[in-house]
């Protein structure tokens, strides 16, 4: 029998109390009133003889109650040997996760983690099958179970040291959740490979910073026999200031401003912020000294001169961790596009479609639009809008434009344009069936098409409030390369896309003036036009800034050449370090900036509660602390669990309460008897 709170046993000394009181005759507290005590002499209180205890049974009962209470409060339990650690003697499948994220770039962290991993494997390799994975935002197999098994036990440590020797952390974020999912998959794989039933251990070697992502672990079902263990690297500096890029800001015709905020951890710090031209090294904006507080959400703006076409760096001076002190910024890739309008109306005429097209595209920042009307000329055309019959040379030009991949929009005002459509598409048999209703509505819309996809959400897909007063149905021939994008509610097609060569011709049944339809006045008009423009330009512009772990988001799927800032290194493979690069496409080249994900700047320690909240089966206690202390702690935990299961104290207290009841009855009867005797 053991006790959880043995010091309560001292309470047993209280048993002496009843014994003493039973040795002394109870000095009565009863009071009797008498007319006059003048003739009375006080009687001396009578002591019992030492050898004689009064009411022995009552005394025993009282002593028993005290003993039970004392016993109960000391929380007794019967010792059982529940293993504190999951069956040490059994085979264990172990996946070691080595954090290779950017925060491990901090001085000493990486080496410490590697050493801890090697040391641990050296101490614990017996009866284990080990697989080592590197984690950041991706999973990097470092040492597979297969290789581990193939290697002779005596050479395994050497093998591990070798594979780890040249490894370096990357600049990616810490996706701990991805790592753990991968580790679980790996464990499953190990079980399948060996066919042995063994307990599963995932041990993570990391700095466990607050920037690590764990959200993916929510709701994860963990195998019962799996345990996650932690081995944090020694706690170093937690004070750090990092930059979180928020983008560009330009209000009206005002200057462009670089917008960012600071991530501050570990304590408030005073730092200096500088913006320096990356090519020539000159400061392009006046430096700022800021007092950054933990949790600060303030926005910082650097006013960037319009003429600044070189990339630049925003740097932090004066914080405690230098690994994230430079943020690289590449200039924006602002596109310019020409919209050519072939129609009789002028820009000023509100009764013509051009008036509304010009107003729609006027404020666009990207692409920056130029509307050309009247004469097509030799202008580069990104989008062609046709609202009238064309001259023969224009038709030829348009056909050529379309066949070369251009995009054109034809507004079908009347049946006379059917011939133009036939010419442009090279298909005969286009018809414009008449409609019977007073006005038309768009009844069926292909929301899977790129032009209407943006309205696919039920919140935006209501087109029934747009009335077409002069609707013109357009029926493609039976054999056609055309696709119907929308139909009027009566059934005939309203919007048709026809593929011409590599280009596309969008035929819109009706004019865009307010007299012909409510389309240009509706809220869907501008987004649709912008979508058409983006489609014509071949999709949205490639970003110029991204994270070092996601270079494909900048380069796209195209084959590009990456050049470093000074042009010394050029490579078709994406760089692995943050910095400023020039990427060369087939046709053009542009500056791009690769940075470390901002979350990696959050180097304050991760709260252990987070793991518990996510339901991760953790046993951190025995691993973070030295082994002896861990065992002691584990034993204490074991004791608490045992005591909690057995709950002997409850029974003891119930028994004590029972005896207390009996004691009350006994003492009541004794006192009554005493009273009767006295009165007799």
């Amino acid at each position, binding site marked *: 029998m053991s006790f959880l709170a043995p010091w309560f046993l001292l309470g047993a000394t209280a048993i002496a109390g009843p014994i003493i009181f039973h040795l002394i005759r109870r*000095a*009565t*507290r*009863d*009071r*009797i*009133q*008498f*007319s*006059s*005590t*003048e*003739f*009375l*002499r*006080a*009687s*001396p*209180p*009578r002591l019992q003889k030492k050898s004689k205890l009064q009411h022995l049974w009552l005394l025993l009962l009282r002593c028993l109650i005290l003993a039970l209470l004392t016993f109960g409060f000391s929380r007794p339990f019967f010792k059982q040997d529940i293993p504190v650690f999951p069956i040490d003697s059994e085979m264990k499948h172990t996946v070691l996760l080595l954090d290779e994220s950017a925060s491990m770039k901090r001085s000493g962290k990486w080496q410490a983690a590697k050493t801890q991993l090697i040391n641990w494997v050296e101490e614990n390799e017996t009866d284990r099958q080990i697989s080592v994975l590197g984690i950041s935002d991706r999973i990097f197999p470092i040492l597979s179970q297969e290789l581990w098994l193939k290697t002779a036990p005596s050479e395994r440590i050497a093998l591990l040291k070798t594979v780890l020797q040249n490894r370096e952390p990357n600049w990616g974020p810490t996706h701990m959740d991805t790592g753990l999912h991968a580790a679980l998959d790996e464990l499953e794989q190990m079980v399948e490979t060996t066919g042995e039933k063994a307990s599963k251990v995932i041990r993570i070697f990391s700095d466990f910073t607050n920037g690590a992502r764990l959200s993916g672990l929510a709701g994860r079902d963990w195998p019962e026999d799996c345990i996650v263990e932690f081995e944090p690297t020694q706690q170093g500096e937690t004070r750090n200031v990092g930059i979180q890029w928020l983008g560009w800001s330009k209000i009206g015709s005002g200057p462009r401003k670089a917008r960012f905020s600071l991530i501050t951890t570990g304590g408030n710090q005073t730092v200096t912020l500088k913006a320096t031209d990356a090519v020539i090294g000159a400061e392009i904006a006046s430096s700022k000294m800021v007092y950054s507080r933990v949790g600060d959400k303030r926005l910082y703006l650097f006013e960037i001169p319009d003429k600044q076409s070189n990339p630049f760096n925003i740097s932090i001076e004066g914080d405690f961790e230098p690994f994230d002190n430079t943020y690289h910024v590449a200039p924006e890739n602002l596109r310019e596009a020409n919209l050519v309008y072939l129609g009789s109306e002028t820009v000023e005429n509100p009764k013509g479609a051009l008036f509304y097209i010009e107003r729609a595209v006027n404020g666009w920042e990207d692409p920056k639009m130029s509307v050309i009307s009247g004469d097509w000329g030799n202008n580069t055309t990104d989008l062609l809008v046709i609202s009238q019959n064309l001259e023969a040379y224009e038709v030829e030009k348009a056909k050529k434009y379309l066949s070369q991949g251009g995009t054109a929009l034809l507004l079908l005002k009347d049946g006379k344009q059917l011939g133009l459509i036939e010419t442009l598409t090279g298909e005969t048999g286009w018809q414009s069936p008449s409609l019977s209703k007073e006005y038309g509505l768009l009844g069926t819309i292909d929301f899977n098409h790129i032009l209407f996809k943006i309205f696919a959400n039920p919140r935006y897909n209501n087109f029934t409030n747009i009335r077409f007063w002069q609707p013109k149905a357009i029926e493609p021939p039976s054999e056609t390369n055309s696709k119907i994008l929308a139909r009027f509610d009566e059934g005939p097609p309203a919007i048709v896309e026809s593929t011409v060569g590599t280009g596309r011709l969008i035929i819109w049944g009706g004019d865009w003036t307010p007299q012909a339809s409510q389309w240009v006045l509706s809220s869907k008009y501008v987004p649709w036009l912008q979508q058409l423009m983006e489609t014509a330009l071949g999709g949205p512009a490639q970003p110029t800034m991204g994270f070092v772990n996601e270079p494909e988001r900048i380069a796209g799927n195209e084959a590009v050449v990456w050049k470093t800032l000074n042009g010394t290194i050029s490579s078709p493979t994406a760089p692995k370090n943050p910095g400023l690069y020039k990427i060369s496409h087939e046709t053009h080249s542009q500056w791009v900036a690769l940075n470390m994900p901002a979350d990696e700047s959050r180097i304050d320690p991760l709260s252990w509660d987070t793991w518990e909240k996510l339901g991760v089966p953790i046993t951190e206690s025995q691993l973070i602390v030295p082994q002896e202390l861990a065992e002691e702690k584990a034993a204490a935990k074991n004791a608490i669990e045992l005591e909690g299961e057995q709950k002997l104290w409850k029974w003891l207290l119930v028994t004590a309460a029972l005896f207390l009841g009996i004691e009350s009855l006994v003492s009541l009867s004794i006192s009554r008897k*005493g*009273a009767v*005797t*006295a*009165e007799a």
Partner: protein
Amino acid sequence: MAIAPSQTGIDPQALFAIRDLEMRARVVVEGLRSGLHRSPMEGFSVEFTEYRQYSLGDDLRYLDWHALARTDREYIKKFEDETNLRCHILLDTSRSMLFGSLPYTKSEYARTLAATLAYFLLHQRDVVGLSLFDSRIRDYMPSKWGPGHLHQLLAKLERKPEGRRPTNLGNALEEVAKLNRKRSLILILSDFLTPPEKWGVELGYLVAMSHDVRAVQILDPAEQSLEFGKAAQWEDLETGNRLYIDPSVARLDYLEKFKSHQVAVKQSLEERGVWLQTVSTDQPLDFVLLEMIQQSGVARNMARTNPRESG
């Protein structure tokens, strides 16, 4: 006056079950009266008895002038004598009277006794007064006879006195002496538990004023035998002092002391010519009243105290 007492008295416990004090008094007195004879004494009163021949020296006020005119003889009219006792009851209401080992206290017993006595006397057309005292006289009613007097007197007796205090019989006797200038029968109902030295002198004054003083000592049976209670903290009702008393141990000593006190009280009273009647609260009240009448000779006393006594 010849009295034939009833064979059994009224059980005090049954009597005290009657809540109304007047009813209680009536029960006792009526029971007693059935054994009383008419008074054989004659005197000048409203009730005519007979004529007798005038003799020299007779008061001419009582001469029957009508008979003289008719018969030319002098006759003196004789009337039945009326008792006209002036009685003052001095009732102890101090704290010690609150003791009672029976279902009622000494105080209740004493009040009932006083009420019975008052009822009895007032129905005899005697005048009765009342003083309630503890450390001094708290309530005083002069001796009177009248239709509402009995009710007032009973109401006073029934009302519980406020803030009881310890006994100071000496003070009370002194005040009574001051208030009762006329010669009266003064009946002291008390437990006389205070030492005689504290009241002996004042009692002497009262006797010296020609008052006929009678003492009725009311004691609880427990006070006389100490066959009561158990080993406990005993609290003195008068002083509030507490003592641990085991009655079985303290009894002998108590009885000795109590006896010597009783002797001292009796001696002190007798020295001053005061008759003492010791009453135990378990005694039937009618017996007590009867004994009081018999022993104290109220009739004889009446004759003595009546200024218009006729032979």
